[in-house]
């Protein structure tokens, strides 16, 4: 009987969960920013990388190299682990959307000055690469 209770509890725990649970969301448990997929204007390829920071002109994305992508270059973006509310279609990013982005980045406080210089040194880069 006790085993049946345990089995019942185990089965109940398998009820379908849709969306990303807190325990599975890496940025909540590490310094990492959210993983982001970017689709750029006039390009078929999708850029996938870690969201480092957001500034007034665009996003800093790390995918082997730290790159800066201006908002107007982004056609669409979505987060790998977050649901639809975080998926955005740009050209239409509002302040609330940018705040969403900022909060799940590695450096929500922004990345510039001496901190940016140290990050670039750690990554072996001279400067941030601007995506044309």
């Amino acid at each position, binding site marked *: 009987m006790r085993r049946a209770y345990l089995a019942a509890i185990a089965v109940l725990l*398998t*009820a379908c*969960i849709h969306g990303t649970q*807190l325990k599975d969301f890496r940025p909540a448990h590490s310094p990492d920013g959210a993983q982001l997929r970017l*689709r750029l204007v006039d390009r078929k390829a999708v850029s996938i990388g870690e969201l480092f920071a957001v500034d007034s002109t665009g996003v800093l994305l790390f995918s082997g190299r730290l790159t800066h992508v201006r908002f107007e270059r982004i056609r669409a973006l979505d987060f790998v682990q*977050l649901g639809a509310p975080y998926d955005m279609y740009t050209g239409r990013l509002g302040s609330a959307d940018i705040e969403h982005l900022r909060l799940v980045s590695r450096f929500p406080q922004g990345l510039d000055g001496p901190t940016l210089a140290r990050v670039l040194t750690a990554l072996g880069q001279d400067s941030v690469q601007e995506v044309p």
Partner: protein
Amino acid sequence: MEWRRSFLRRLAPPALIACSFFAAACLHRFVETTARVVERPLDTSTDTIRTPLKVHLVDGSTVVFEGGARVTASRIEGAGLRYPLMAVVGAPASAVPMDSVMGVEAFSERTNRFASVVVSLGATALGAVVTAGLLVAIFGSCPTVYADTGTGLLLEAEGFSYAISPLMEHRDLDPLRARPGPDGVLRLELRNEAMETHFINHVEIVAARHATGTEVVADQGGRPVTVSGFAPALRARDRAGQDVMPFLASRDGSLYSTSPVVIGAAREGDLDDWIDLDAEQLPEGDSIAVVMRLRNSLLNTILLYEGMLGGRDAPDMLTQDLERIAQTVDLARWYVGTMGMRATVEGVPLRPSEPFVGHARLTDVGPIAFRDVAIVLPRPVAAASRVRVRLAFVADNWRIDEVRVAGVVSRPAVTMLPVTRVIVPTPAQGTGPVDDTAAIPAIADADEKYFETRPGQRMTLEFAKEAPASALGGSDVTYLLGWQGWYREWLRPSWLARPMRTTPFVVGDASMLTALRSWTSQKERFEQAFYSSSIPVR
């Protein structure tokens, strides 16, 4: 007594496990993880946060308190790990002085309780009925609008059907039966009755003034058009050669649908049915309008659910493929050339077009609400009193209640009435009704701001009062709902557990033909399940 105990002991374990399986099959929990800024306490109070906390320090390092922390005005305490800038391994840290902190954010998980309960109940109720692999609520396609027309709330319109990705966002114009109340205010109830997130960009009322005896509907371009001078003599034959006027003569609920003969003959490269209209005794003019009351069948819905989203690649299809411009353009080109309704006028030269759209094309309007529309077309010669029009479409894609041909076509004077109030009768938290003031700027213009709704939500929209009739001219007024947006389908577990296709979805006639065959084989059952499975609103 002993035998009963023994019996129960033997029966209980399998029963318990069986019940658990049943419950597990029906419990769906919709969660999302969010981040928020944690403010520094200003006084001596302590803020205890029990979810993960991330502290960003002035020197670029990060301290993660996975189990939460106590936040005071002077320090943050808890069991944390401190990660130097760009480090992947952290060192234990139990306290962080507030003067070294640049910012703090807390992460939490949120359950959409209402959707979870609704989907769980919906899954249980439908599971016994539906056998087509669509176990969870299948009522799909877009927001719906209801209005009190004097006999209770009636369905008035469905918006931006089949706009399942942001690239497919579009605007609809739906004529309404609703009228302003005694206080001069027009009210509509906006609902999300589907397993979808709706992204509504713009909502307004277009008030069109026109002369008595004329009607205002939306044309194929989504603009209001005034029509009158209807041909007194009209004949209609379908591709099978049948006289279909009995179905089309009046709006009586007797609907035209494609003959089984035509459906059976459909093949790749020739999927069409058509209706040839012969209108006579038209008043003078240089154009005509084919005025119809119609909606789509569920063929499109089958194509969407079983075809596009019917495989295990559905998540990629929704989140990647349909946001890629090239793929969406391919889909759109095929869709424009195949779906909808293409109208051609005999005797009027056709300009070559790729894809072929005839002289005019009406886009699909969705399977839920009937819409009054007009396809405005040229006449073969000015003032021709007889016109033959062919309406061509994929077999069984439409349900048509009424068709007329108008000989007088003009544009009405219109006034735009913006949304002035959004009232939520039963909010998720607290008691209602409450005004959703944030929703108004989101839907005031077609811009970057969207009003997002979830399954089960409803709200009343109030629109600005119209200016006095004398200022606008015309003796009658027709109200049309202009709205724009897109929606995201929620993936159903059954789509992934029991895929309807195992090979990639390929845009084209073959996929359409597969959908047509599937639709034909389960029409009645699917319609019954679809139209009875809308998500209840709160």
